[in-house]
Each structure stands twice: as structure tokens, then as C-alpha cells.
């Protein structure tokens, strides 16, 4: 009997533990339910709806007017006769790659310099200020500076150079906006990179110094390799931000002009959906952009992992 009771007790103890774990799991899910519901309502459902819209013809407003369109929206969007592939998608990639290159190069330089200066907090705040300022303010200030009678042209005129239509000439408009986007992004990247620099043990530099390495060697052989995880994070986030960005373009060129020179995918989606009521093509564009972002991000991660690095 004792053996039987103890056997039952031995069986009952794990069962109780399982029951307790089950209850705790249930409680955990219940506590998580507001966040899960939020995630579902504001992320999963809109994403599913966007996929449905990408295969539909819908003018907005009334869901009863939604019609199945098959792949025709993708056909329109990816047609080489249209404007989405060229110039819009090309502009988007140039804008994203250009701003990532400039912002990353600039932020590494700035972070490296700040790491060697006194009053580092002050410098970090200074470079972070554009991140705090609104895009509208930044865009308008730069727009004024780019004007034919603005500060930059005044300087060029003093140097004997004729005025440049930074935002009105289709050859200069995209690079001009890209520079501003990169400038406005540097602050956030500097913050991450300075944290990355602080994490590099000082002993590596001391050992290199003993071996007679100069500053350039130390930067190239110690700083840059050990900064790669932070750099990877900066690259990925900046690139995704660059591909999705359009607020600055609306402020600076208004309509993605001149002649679509600054029109990017996110802005075109907004125009198609909210101006022309073409929600199907807008959603198809969103899907194409989603696939591009996913592919490039996976590529970046794959390259990084081959070198044995993670972002976290």
C-alpha cells in the first residue's frame, strides 16, 4: 500500500508540475493578449489586407466594390513601359544606397573623432539634434538653402560658379535630397557606433601601439573589424529606412519632381492609393518593395554571418 501510494505520489507530482506549468503558460498568454491583439490588429491584419488588395481592383472607400484582379496589378507595376521600375524603383535604390553610404561613412568618421575628443556627450547631442528635429523643419531649411537665391548658391556665386537648380534640375534633385537624408540620419548612427567603439577593449590598441602600429593601421585592423556588428545594425536599419522614406521628399520637392526625378516607391504608393484611388496597384508596389527589402536584408545578414557576426 505504501509502495502504491508513493507510486501514485510519484506520478502525481509531475502531473501537478505539468498542470502548474500549463496554468502559468495560460496566464502568460493572457497577460500577453493585449500586446498580441495589438500586433494582430495593427500589423498582421493590415499585412493580410495589403496582400488581398495587391490582387484586387479597389478604389477605396467601399469594400463592396473590391474586385479580384489576379496578377494584373503586378503586371502594371512591373511593366517596363510604366514608371515604377524606372525611374521610381531605380530612384528608390539610388536614394537608399546613396544615403546609407553617405550616412555610414559620415557616422563612422564622426563617431571615431568623437571617441577621441573631450566633452563627448556634448558632441553626441550636437550630432543627434537632426534626429530630434522634425523632417518638415529639416526639409524646409535645406530647401531654402538649395534655392537659386539660397545660401549654397550664394557661396557658389562668390566662388564664381553659376547658380545650380539643386531641386529644379532633374540631374541634381535626387543627389540633393539624398545628401539631406544622409545628413539627418547621421545622429542616430553616431550614437550606435560610439557605443560600439566604447565596447572595443583598450588593450588591443595598447598592444598595437607597442607593436608600432600607426592610427590608420589601428583603425583599419582593430576598430573597423570590431565595429562590424554595430556597423551591420546601422547598415540594415539605415537601408530599410532609406527604402521606406518619403516624408523628406514630399517636403523638399512636393510631388517627387522635377519629372519624377525624386519620386520613390513609398511616395508613389501614397499617391496611387490616396490620390488616384488605385489601392490595388499601390498594394502591389508595397509587396514588390517588401520583397526587395527582405532580399537585401537577408543578403546583408548572410554576408555578415559568413564573417561570423550577428547583430545581437
Amino acid at each position, binding site marked *: 500500500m505504501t509502495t502504491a501510494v508513493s507510486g501514485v505520489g510519484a506520478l502525481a507530482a509531475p502531473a501537478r508540475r505539468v498542470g502548474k506549468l500549463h496554468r502559468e503558460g495560460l496566464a502568460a498568454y*493572457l497577460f500577453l*493578449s493585449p500586446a498580441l491583439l495589438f500586433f494582430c*490588429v495593427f500589423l498582421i491584419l493590415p499585412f493580410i489586407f495589403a496582400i488581398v488588395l495587391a490582387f484586387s481592383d479597389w478604389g477605396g472607400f467601399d469594400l463592396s466594390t473590391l474586385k479580384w484582379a489576379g496578377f494584373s496589378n503586378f503586371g502594371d507595376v512591373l511593366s517596363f513601359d510604366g514608371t515604377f521600375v524606372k525611374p521610381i524603383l531605380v530612384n528608390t535604390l539610388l536614394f537608399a544606397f546613396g544615403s546609407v553610404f553617405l550616412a555610414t561613412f559620415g557616422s563612422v568618421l564622426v563617431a571615431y573623432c568623437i571617441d577621441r575628443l573631450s566633452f563627448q556627450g556634448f558632441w553626441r547631442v550636437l550630432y543627434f539634434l537632426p534626429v530630434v528635429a522634425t523632417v518638415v523643419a529639416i526639409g524646409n531649411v535645406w530647401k531654402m538653402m538649395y534655392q537659386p537665391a539660397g545660401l549654397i548658391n550664394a557661396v557658389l556665386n562668390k566662388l564664381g560658379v553659376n547658380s545650380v537648380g539643386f531641386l*529644379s534640375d532633374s540631374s541634381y534633385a535626387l543627389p540633393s535630397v539624398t545628401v539631406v537624408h544622409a545628413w539627418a540620419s547621421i545622429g542616430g548612427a553616431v550614437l550606435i557606433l560610439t557605443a560600439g567603439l566604447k565596447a572595443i577593449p583598450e588593450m588591443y590598441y595598447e598592444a598595437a601601439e607597442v607593436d608600432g602600429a600607426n592610427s590608420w593601421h589601428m583603425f583599419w585592423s582593430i576598430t573597423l573589424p570590431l565595429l562590424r556588428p554595430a556597423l551591420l545594425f546601422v547598415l540594415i536599419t539605415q537601408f530599410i529606412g532609406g527604402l521606406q522614406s518619403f516624408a523628406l521628399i514630399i517636403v523638399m520637392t512636393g*510631388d517627387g519632381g522635377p519629372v519624377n526625378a525624386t519620386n520613390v516607391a513609398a511616395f508613389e504608393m501614397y499617391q496611387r492609393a*490616396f490620390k488616384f*484611388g488605385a489601392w490595388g496597384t499601390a498594394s502591389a508596389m508595397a509587396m514588390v518593395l517588401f520583397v526587395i527589402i527582405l532580399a537585401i536584408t537577408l543578403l546583408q545578414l548572410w554576408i555578415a554571418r559568413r564573417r561570423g557576426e550577428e547583430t545581437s
Partner: protein
Amino acid sequence: MRISKGLRLAVVAGLLASAAACGGSGDSGGGSGSGGKVELTLLSHYSDGPSKDGLDKMIAQWNKDNPKIQVKAQVVKFDDLLTTMTVRQTGGRGADIVSAYGLWGGQLMKANVVAKVPDDIATKIKAEYSPAALGAVTTGDTLLGYPTELNTYVLFYNKKILAAAGITKPPTTWAELADDAKKTVKRDAKGNIQVEGLSLIQDGDNKSVHPFLSLLDSAGGKFLGADGTPQFDNDQGKAALKFEGDLAAAKASNTSISPTKQFRSGGVAMALQAGWWIGSLKTQMKDKYASDVGVTAIPGPTPGSKGSLAYGFFMGVNQRSKHADEAWKFLTWMNEHKASGGDVTETGKWLADQGLIPPRTADQAEYKKSLSDPNLAPIYDAATYAMAEPNQPGAYEAKTGLHNAIMTVLADGKNPDDALAQAAKAVKPQ
């Protein structure tokens, strides 16, 4: 099974949070209050200045006289109007009465936003409003609502700049217009424009299209056919765009100059602009307005020819409104009752006070009798011959494509024929 206190707390918290996340009223537009009182909502872009004051005054008068049908104005900036309508209508919160730009009419109709105008009201509107006003708010054969704002395009010129260049009268043909633009343009040694000869853009959406369509009209051309097919890729369209391209190539016109900012300070000699601009110029230039600003019809390619574009707004009733009858009752009163002590309607007065053309023929005739400003006469005249801006579904997209084509000519020097052919190819009739 016993449920622990913590688990019960979690269940309650989860349910409360879920309920809060899913909460919200499902009202669409106005509602019925106590005692059968109806509250109508009116969404418009009349958000400040005399436009808001005038509309608020009319609504206050109606609300006082009709305690059972109360109207509540909801306003947003024009730039946010279509987006606001889209979001609110999709969310079941569309206003009972919507004020919209005629160009959007086709897509609003296609998406079942605006209700059909009742036959008796439509008959009256068609009989009593000017053809330009009706054209700007009619899609196919379907009238979208009561025409409200009506604007026509004319040639604004700076009398002093023209006189200083030895020009004694405003241009009456394209050749004279081009000559005058080239005579008045001024640039400094660094190439910066001091005075632009002729501005071919206006502020706002698709800024190059309205001036181009005015020139196209003056040459006898059209933008879109009734079925939405492109009509501008022909001799008239090519001539109009070549005219613009030649001026840009001669550097007499430059798209980086904003006429609404620089005309008032003498930075622009001539500009193709809408009539509403008069009100702004009067405010900005004060005493200089009368001495410096002249307005004339947009000349055509041959002597005696002229052209203009008319665009308009309308007020219609939301198809989802639960109080459509009451909404039409209010709109009928708003558009038909006379202003106190006058021969014009209150709405006509409200619009004329803003420098706009009243769309009702009788109001126009009454105002034309006693125009205090001679510059208004060409604007009113244009309402009789202007091309109404097409507004079928797809027109907005076609207009944007045309804008891009025009800009390739004005900003990049592209061949006008190629640009128009590309724009025409991109038009998709719906």
C-alpha cells in the same frame, strides 16, 4: 479546477485591454439625437479666413431656423481633404455632406461615395448654373452635386514691367506673348533670374497642367474625351507644348520660380493663373495692386482666339448618409436662399467675397453688372468659353502623367512631341 487570484486578474486585465483595443463607436456621419433631432456633418476645406466665416455664418443661420436638422461643419486643409475623406469613409465615419474638388468626382462616384442628385434638384441645377461650372462637376452624364467654387484661368501681368520693356498693351496672340516674355525677362551675370518673363506653372498639385490646358483650349484642343481617352496628342497639343518649350529654352520661363511668391515683388512679368489669385494679390500688394496688376484673357495662336480652363468644387451628399433627404434640404437652402437685401444668393455672395466666380448664372450676371475691379471682368468672361476640367475616373492619374510630360519639356528640354506621346500612352481610361 481552482483558478489562482493572479490568473483571474490576468483574465480580467486581458479582456479589458482587448475590449479597449476593439472599442469605438460605429457611427457613420451624423446621427439622430433626442426628440428626432438630426445632426448632419459637413466636411470641407473651408478652414480659415472669409471662406470659413461665410460658411459658418450660413450654417449658424440654418441651425437657428431648423432646430430639428442641425448641421456641424468639419474642416481640414485642402491638401488633407481627399485623404481625410478616404480614411473616414472607409472607416464608416464619412460626413453626410462632402465638399470635393471636381477632379476627384469620377473616382468618388466609382467608389460609391457621392449619392445621385435627386432628379428635381438636378434639373434645377442644370438650368441655373453656368456651363463651365456644370462641366467641372459632371462626370459623364452624372451631376455630382451643387457647384460651389468656380475658377477660370487668365493672364496676369505686371503693368510696370511691361511698360518698362516698351510694351504698351497686353499680348493678344501667342507670338506677342512669346515676344513680351522674352523682352521682359531679366537675369544677372551669374544666370540668376531677376524677372521671369512668363510663368507657366501654378502652386499646388500638378502645377504645370492648368496653364498648359488653358493654352491647349486657346488652340482649340482638348484634354480627355468623354470616355477618358487622351485627346491632347495632336497638332493643337504639340503646338501648345512647343510654345511652352520654346519659352523655356529661351530662358524666358523657368519652373523654379514660384509666381505666387515672386509676382507680388516684381519677380514675374506675366503668369497664367486662376482667378482666385486676385484676392491674394490684393491682400499682399495693397495699394500697388491697382497700379501694377493687369488681367487679360489668355491669347491663342491666332488673332482673336483665346482660351481658359475652368475647374470647380461641388457639395454633394454621401451615399452612406442616413439622412440624405435632410442633407439635400440643407444644400438646397444653402445654395438657393438670397443674401439679405440683395439680388444674389448667399452662397454666390460668399464665393464672390473671396474673389471667386459664383457658379450660378444669375449671380454671375448680377456681379458682372457692377464689378468694382476691372481685372475681374476677364475672369468672369472666361467662364463663358473655358474648357471644363475633365473629371472621369482616371482623370487625376492622367493629369499627373501629363504634368510629368510637360515638365520633361520645361525642365529637361525634351522634345514636346515625344513627351505628349508618352503621356498619352500612360492614360488608362476606366
